[in-house]
């Protein structure tokens, strides 16, 4: 039996002053995760907690939030990890819309600024690096933890590095100059390589390895090797 308090930082709108609310929660399901708990809690509330979810199996990044001071996915957070209480807040680096919902559009804007797409046909030929780089959820956890990232700054963080790496495995010549320039400016020059991001990435993406490979290509003009 699970029994604890869900402490949630709530606000109705972006203008509203945030305040903590505490809800007693219990469940017979020992394996219940925070996403299922929020769904159950909401059934009992006149003003349900607003939050985003979709897949409920850590594959879409929708439910990222701060859980006990760490960016995590609610659907990948079993309640049995906690005793007595669990503190839940919206991600702090993005504008809050209401309760636990934040506007993460900066992630997508950064990818547009960096022109993350193939300008012409490009085959990645089963590249393992391209596969790994295609797995990013755009959840924003890596940006949340990163000391160097803030919305509106030049540094786009690992949420931009990872998708860019897919391009680097098969980049057409005509795109090289522009993308390498963007890579240096928005990724390479901003990153202090502490790899706090690697620890929190809920998809377990091998950020460190991708970063080494991408730097080699975009900054040092080498080729990605041993990629099958």
């Amino acid at each position, binding site marked *: 039996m699970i029994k604890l308090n869900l402490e949630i930082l709530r606000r109705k709108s972006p203008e509203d002053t945030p305040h903590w609310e505490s809800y007693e929660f219990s469940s017979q399901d020992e394996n219940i995760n925070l996403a299922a708990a929020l769904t159950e809690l909401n059934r009992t509330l006149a003003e349900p907690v607003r939050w985003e979810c979709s*897949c409920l*199996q850590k*594959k879409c990044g929708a439910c990222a939030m701060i859980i006990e001071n760490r960016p995590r996915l609610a659907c990948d957070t079993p309640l049995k990890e906690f005793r007595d209480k669990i503190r839940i807040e919206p991600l702090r680096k993005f504008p809050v*819309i209401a309760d636990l919902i934040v*506007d993460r559009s900066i992630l997508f804007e950064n990818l547009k600024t960096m022109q993350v797409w193939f300008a012409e046909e490009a085959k*990645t030929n089963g590249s393992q690096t391209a596969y790994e780089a*295609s797995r990013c959820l755009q959840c924003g956890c890596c940006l949340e933890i990163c000391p160097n990232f803030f919305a509106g700054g030049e540094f786009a963080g690992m949420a931009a590095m990872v*998708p860019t790496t897919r391009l680097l495995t098969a980049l057409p010549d005509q795109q090289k100059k522009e993308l390498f320039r963007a890579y240096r400016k928005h990724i390479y020059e901003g990153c202090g390589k502490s790899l706090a991001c690697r620890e929190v990435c809920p998809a377990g993406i091998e950020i460190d390895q991708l970063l080494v490979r991408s730097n080699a290509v975009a900054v040092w003009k080498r080729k990605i090797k041993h990629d099958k």
Partner: protein
Amino acid sequence: MQKVIIIGAGLAGLSASVTLAEHGVPCALISLQNSERAQSVLAEGGINAALNTMGENDTVQNHYQDTVKGGVYLADPNAVQNLTYHAPEIVRWLEQLGVPFNMTESDIMLRNFGGQKKKRTAYARSSTGKIIMTALIDEVRKYEVSGLVQRFPHHRFIRLRIADQVCQGVSIQDDYTGEILDFSGTVLLCSGGMNGIFPGMTTGTTQNSGDVTATVFRQGVKLGNLEMLQYHPTTIGISGKRCLVTEAARGEGGRLYIMRNGQKWHFMEEKYPELKNLMPRDVVAREMYFVRRELGGEVFLDMTGLPEITWQKKLSDLRQEIMHYLSSDPRTNPIPVREGIHYFMGGIDTDEFHRTNLENLYAAGECTCQYHGANRLGGNSMLGALYGGRKAAESILQNPAEIRESKTNSEQEKFIPASPVLIQEISQILLSGLGIVRNQKTLETALEKLKQLSCQRTYHFYEQNRLLLAEAMLASALERRESRGAHYREDYPEKNEDFRKTTIAEYAEQIRISFREIPEKRADA
């Protein structure tokens, strides 16, 4: 040409937007959340195309045959012919967008999938949907920057705007601000399956609430084959949902068994010596149901015989997932599995050009009842969504409609979600009637309960729509007095040629169920 309005940014919506953009036609791409969160990212096992790269003499004709046979001859043969003919082209296109499919020494590798005798399923380990979506999202981004695709994430479909029996556009709501926006133009619905009708019981996403289908039904759009729910044979219960164990597990050699007299009984292998564990999903799910009913206990999926290289190169993600959720290593332990609702073969009724019965309204992807008939083959739905989105866009390009800026009826009412209590009540009633095995009595009882529920309280517009959709689902299942594909009636266990027709549900004051002939296959198709 006027801007096209696309509701939904999964595989179908993205594919349509790229096709329009390639022809220089702008679109508004509207979705509840960003594409990264659409159900399409969950697809695991792969996408079908007769690429014939494995030396098995596979042909487009084989793919066509397997698809219509798998769907037990309810699918439109001309539409399926187009789908299967263009499948290799679609997969090659994805390859050129940089999708890192698993490869043989020289070409795209194909794996076995249910209901197909040849290797025909292209894949990227066991995260094929995610990997394809990433490439497609990047491609769409190019057109976002050039201005041809205008995205509206966090926007919700409210209702169609209809005048003179022509679709004039849509009303949508910004879920962040609550603001209502009206759009005029041709509308393409790509809003996915109806998971939200069965909360917690499906393998899909909570985002596809079923509200779009329910609302357009209320507004007069016809729905087809609503009784055809696909139960996937191998799912596991996790917190809040059913989690899929991909069919690739069996494609790569996984075996199903149940304990009988202390021995493992590989019932699928004994009963179906040709396709064994890879019979179409409806057959496997039903057999599992029957052996469990007979013997009690659980059915197990045994993957302990798979070679290490398969785990590493092909099913690494699956193994991690099972270890995560069951704390058990499938390399050494068989896992207990049950059937779970996985796909909606039924939905918005369209012709092979993806037109609905309402002029100027089109639909593609899982929200439609196109391509899969009474049972969808694994690997055919990503194909159906990608090809369907493209085909719908081409139809729109061929029939440009200029919609005058019609004045809104200005019912600026906001969306109100159905109460969770009502959603649960409806879902329980539906499950009691629409299980793997059905009969007249349980269906009639379910319909009766639903009618009582409808009279019990007063409901708002969106709740009423759900009640109507639920009634249409049960009524469709009741009227189909035969067994075919996913629809199994204990009281009519045989297939009946008289019912080789599409079940059509329509609403005008009340619900009417009828049956429509399947089109003849054209010689030129």
